[in-house]
């Protein structure tokens, strides 16, 4: 039997940092949102779907003008916005890209998003941008570095950020703690919030033979400011073991829906994004999948019984 969330019935919750040194913003509504895609711009404005918020990738809007800004400005007038960065490279072993922070700051000032989030990962080295979220070892030195980078981001942007747990495929021999302990410490020290990507938890747990529900329980759920849901692709590793790939190109898997329900039972209704970046369905199909997440939010009096065994060892 899953423990019932003590937050059930509450609406938007904010992270409660141990060190309250960052300004919390109003936050996203405790509803579901979808990614805003250019092919849906006109549909969204014409049909004004009843959806909690839209999320955009910050880097797509770091352009001078044109339809992206035209439509985002108009859509933002009707919906809360989540600004999600994919290029800041917070896990970099070099200095943060201050010019990129300036661009983020300009976007935040222009569009006043309810949330800004980035990943626990690196994506650039030297001048090269790899367009992928690359893993970091979970050791002391990396922890100190990531905390410094998150501090710098929050200082420069003048607001709290949410840090997203990654999908990982590899482990580092140098790691001295698990991912949940690493994230908990970053959150405790910097006061940032957690963007809990439930698909990433599931993918990483399958990929590393861990128990997904135990992982959820070891994360600082009181700091969750947003949840991500997405689909994965399947592959096999060199030993033939299942290897899940975070692809954002298919509907959310039933196991991830189940884990999501378990998270909601612990957190109460929480802003939730349905992430889809590849093989895009049309807007109504995307909204229908998002509705499924929203339907789960009030139905928390009884946890879902999925019959899934979370352990893999």
């Amino acid at each position: 039997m899953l423990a019932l969330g003590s937050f059930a019935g509450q609406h938007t919750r904010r992270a409660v940092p141990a060190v309250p040194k960052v300004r919390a913003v109003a936050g996203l509504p405790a509803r579901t949102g979808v990614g805003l895609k250019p092919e849906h711009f006109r549909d969204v404005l014409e049909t004004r779907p009843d959806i909690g918020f839209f999320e955009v990738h910050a880097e797509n809007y770091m352009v001078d003008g044109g339809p992206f800004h035209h439509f985002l400005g108009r859509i933002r007038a009707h919906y809360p916005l989540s600004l999600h960065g994919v290029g800041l490279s917070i896990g970099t072993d070099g200095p943060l890209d201050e010019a990129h922070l300036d661009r983020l700051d300009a976007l935040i000032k222009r569009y006043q998003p309810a949330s800004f989030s980035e990943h626990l990962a690196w994506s650039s080295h030297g001048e090269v941008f790899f367009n992928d979220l690359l893993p970091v070892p979970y050791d002391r030195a990396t922890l100190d570095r990531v905390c410094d980078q998150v501090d710098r981001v929050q200082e420069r942007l003048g607001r709290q950020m949410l840090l997203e747990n990654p999908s990982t495929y590899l482990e580092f021999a140098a790691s001295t703690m698990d991912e949940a302990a690493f994230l908990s410490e970053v959150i405790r020290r910097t006061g940032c919030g957690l963007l809990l990507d439930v698909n990433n938890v599931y993918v990483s747990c399958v990929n590393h033979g861990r128990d997904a529900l135990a992982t959820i329980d070891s994360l600082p759920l009181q700091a969750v400011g947003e949840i991500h849901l997405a689909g994965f692709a399947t592959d096999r590793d060199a030993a033939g073991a299942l290897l899940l790939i975070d692809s954002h190109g298919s509907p959310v898997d039933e196991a991830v829906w189940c884990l999501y329900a378990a998270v909601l039972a612990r957190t109460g209704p929480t802003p939730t994004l349905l992430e889809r970046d590849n093989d895009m369905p049309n807007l109504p199909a995307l909204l229908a999948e998002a509705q499924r997440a929203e339907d789960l939010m009030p139905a928390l009096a009884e946890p879902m019984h999925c019959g899934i065994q979370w352990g893999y060892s």
Partner: protein
Amino acid sequence: MGLLVTQAAFAATLLAPDLPSPAGLRAWNGSDPAARLAVHRNNVVSSLIDAVADSFPVAQELVGEEFFRAMAALFVREHPPRSKILAHYGCEFADFVDGFEPARSVPYLADVARLERARVLAYHAADGDPLKAEKLVEAMSSGHDLGTLQLHCHPSMSVIVSAHAIVSLWAAHQGEGDLSTVDPAAAESALVVRPGLDVLVLRLPPGAARFAIALQTGAVLADAAALAASETADFDLPNALTLLMHHGALISFQFSGSRSQ
């Protein structure tokens, strides 16, 4: 020792399929981490190939998806992005295609890629309000020396001069015109501009490309017209000016001190 995988070592393996995976990576089940590292190698290369393919759809149609993706894979490894903003990626692609031996049999491929690149740049360029015709008429009757009129082009504007029929080829792939009637060897120059939300692609008449480029680089009207006329006797100034005005390629003007000719 040997435990620490530096990001430099990790990064080096991402674009080099022949490099072994760095020591210090492992998997829970003791399996070879190289197969897992391959997920990242594939993410990097295939997502960047996708980005190139998205920017150059007609170039891809001209050579077929298989050839295009193989060519793009080589491009991605040789010219990975230097910007985190993927809209900026692909500026070197047309030059790469120019030097790509297996694509020699499609001599217009690189210039079609230049046209497509210009469309992406125009799409995301700064906005600008097109100059109204009345304003220009007003200026022309103001008594100033018209030859010293400096016309400012729209920030989204570019001109591509080609020895090939790039506009007709591109348009045929948008369902405009019949591809079988296009003579690829007929020289065409393209004007690309986004006066509002939509990017326009226009075939420029003789001399108009030289004229538009001259205006864009700051030449006064008399100098730009003289340059175009020296290129072709067929240059028609009123027609070129009307075409640029009508499609929103001009946004403002001023009278400059002098003309050079």
